[in-house]
């Protein structure tokens, strides 16, 4: 049983999704029960896997018992276990929030939600480059449909851009995988790392072309500067629980960059070592600057949060660009914080919009809110955490990032990161004071929010104090993760025990 645990994060949402497709309309209670139960079960599985991976041992699951490099393997190390747990925590908050009524605005919400989880979990676990493409497609197909959930002009507009861009991205992904397969003759990432190390010099150009094309694809998912224009509109128009789940989608791109370039193009890759580093570093800084401007310019709370996601993408990529174990450790800590907090803020924006009636989430004067005080408290916690002010988790994450920068990197990163923090702070305090303090006079009307929604938001935003309270264990785990990533040889030896003899 225990050795099969690794495949559960893929199988569980798949089975749950099939059960949920049983009937399109009706059976609301049944669907909600199955979906929430499956997500909570996923959380328990993820906790079990994290405990298994925390020992530092790398375990893998060979599907159909076909051993690597011939079969497809699911690999569990510290990083993938952490990402699985993060996805599950986020999903529990989002799915409970959706049970308040968002799920019935269109058909098949819960089934698609589970399949989105299937794609995300698969992308985190797989050890095979083509399989990564397949899981990317699974999560994208689910996300296309989820983005359209509920319909409406703005969503369809945003979807057209999102779908077309991602289809072009998928073509690029296939070309890149094809080039890498043609040059190295394998698709297994661990095997590819060995082949790249032994590559003849004439194929260097081909492999680096393939590798940089992969960077474009992952950059499109992660939303790096020239490729981020789809994000604000798509995230701002998506239904709230979907937008919250999308908070992990950009992190799938970041995970893929981290995984592929630390494993395949690590220390042993010779001339090709760290070929992505200059690109990622400079583009991350440019992303930070552009996102800071976007945050200041946003006139809608949801758009503001979407730009805050971009700020976090820039910060995380800068961590990859620094390419030291210390920076990777800092970025993983920041990644946990930013995923949960921005997810929570998307949910909170929806609640604020519901209470304000016609004014919605636009940052203008509106009618007073029924539960304004409680919402304002949550907004305060979320805003402080995301802007990076003590005492909440954002401050810790940013301090770790700043501390990890060395030499001339400080010269660029410090001012940019601190200025975007300032921009976020200004934008958030402006938004908060308009939303909560500058309301029209008049009687308070509107209905109180459902308990599911409160649970979803508090569940996600409680990460802000919790990550600080448990900063010790969390950061020692992220440090161990960064060390494991810096030594890909362990993973390669686990997957391919015979590889040492061949060399």
């Amino acid at each position, binding site marked *: 049983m225990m050795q099969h645990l690794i495949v559960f994060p893929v199988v569980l949402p798949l089975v749950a999704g099939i059960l949920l497709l049983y009937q399109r309309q009706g059976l609301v209670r049944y669907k909600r029960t199955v979906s929430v139960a499956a997500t909570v079960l996923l959380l328990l599985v993820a906790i079990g896997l994290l405990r298994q991976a925390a020992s530092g041992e790398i375990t893998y699951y060979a599907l159909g018992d076909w051993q690597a490099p011939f079969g497809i393997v699911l690999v569990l190390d510290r990083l993938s276990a952490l990402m699985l747990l993060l996805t599950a925590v986020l999903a529990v908050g989002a799915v409970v929030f959706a049970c308040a009524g968002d799920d019935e605005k269109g058909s098949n919400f819960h089934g698609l939600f589970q399949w989105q989880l299937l794609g995300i979990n698969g992308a985190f676990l797989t050890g095979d480059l083509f399989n990564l493409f397949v899981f990317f497609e699974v999560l994208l197909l689910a996300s*296309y449909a989820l983005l359209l959930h509920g319909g409406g002009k703005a969503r*369809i*507009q945003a979807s*057209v851009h999102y779908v077309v861009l991602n*289809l072009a991205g998928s073509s690029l992904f296939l070309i890149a995988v*094809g080039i890498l397969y043609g040059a190295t003759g394998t698709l297994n990432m661990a095997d590819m790392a060995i082949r790249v190390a032994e590559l003849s010099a004439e194929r260097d150009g081909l492999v680096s072309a393939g590798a940089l094309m992969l960077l474009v694809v992952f950059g499109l998912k992660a939303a790096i500067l020239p490729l981020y224009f789809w994000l604000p509109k798509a995230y701002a128009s998506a239904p709230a629980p979907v937008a919250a789940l999308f908070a992990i989608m950009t992190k799938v791109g970041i995970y893929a960059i981290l995984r592929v370039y630390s494993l395949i193009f690590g220390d042993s890759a010779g001339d090709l070592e760290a070929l992505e580093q200059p690109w990622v570093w400079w583009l991350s800084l440019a992303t930070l600057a552009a996102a800071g401007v976007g945050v200041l310019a946003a006139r809608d709370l949801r758009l503001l949060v979407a730009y805050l996601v971009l700020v976090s993408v820039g910060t995380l990529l800068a961590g990859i660009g620094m390419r030291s174990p210390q920076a990777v450790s800092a970025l993983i800590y920041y990644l946990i914080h930013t995923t949960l907090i921005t997810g929570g803020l998307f949910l909170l924006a929806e609640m604020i919009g519901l209470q304000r009636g016609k004014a919605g989430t636009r940052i203008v004067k509106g009618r007073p809110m029924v539960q304004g005080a409680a919402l304002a408290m949550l907004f305060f916690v979320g805003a402080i955490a995301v802007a990076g002010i003590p005492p909440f988790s954002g401050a810790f994450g940013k301090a770790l990032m700043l501390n990890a920068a060395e030499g001339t990197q400080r010269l660029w990163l410090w001012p940019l990161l601190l200025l975007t923090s300032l921009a976020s702070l200004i934008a958030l305090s402006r938004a908060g004071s308009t939303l909560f303090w500058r309301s029209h006079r008049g009687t308070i009307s509107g209905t109180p929010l459902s308990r599911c929604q409160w649970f979803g938001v508090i569940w996600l935003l409680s990460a802000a104090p919790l990550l600080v309270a448990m900063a010790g264990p969390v950061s020692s785990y992220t440090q161990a993760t960064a060390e494991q990533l810096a030594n890909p040889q362990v993973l390669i030896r686990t997957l391919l025990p015979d590889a040492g003899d061949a060399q």
Partner: protein
Amino acid sequence: MELLYAMTTGVLTASGLYLTLRGRTFPVVVGLTLLSYAVNLFLFSMGGLTTDGAAIVSEGAGFADPLPQALVLTAIVIGFAMTAFVVILAMRARSEVGNDHVDGKKEDRE
């Protein structure tokens, strides 16, 4: 044969890219389809082009690399599903927004 194959792939990619960058949804959909054809051909050629090779393993020399074939098959299936989805999406955008421009603009910017 290599030259012909490379030229076909290249022309398909170029046409697909050009059409994808157009302003109306129909050319974009056709462009994405051409792009996926080009990608399938490209993937297929990555195992190396051989003529008269055995389809499955044979005694002695030359058999075709089975992996690119499997990849192409997967890519075709996914490509079909995606094309079907994008066609439906384009039709819904046409009916909701009232025109077939990708940005939903009223005026004709072609």
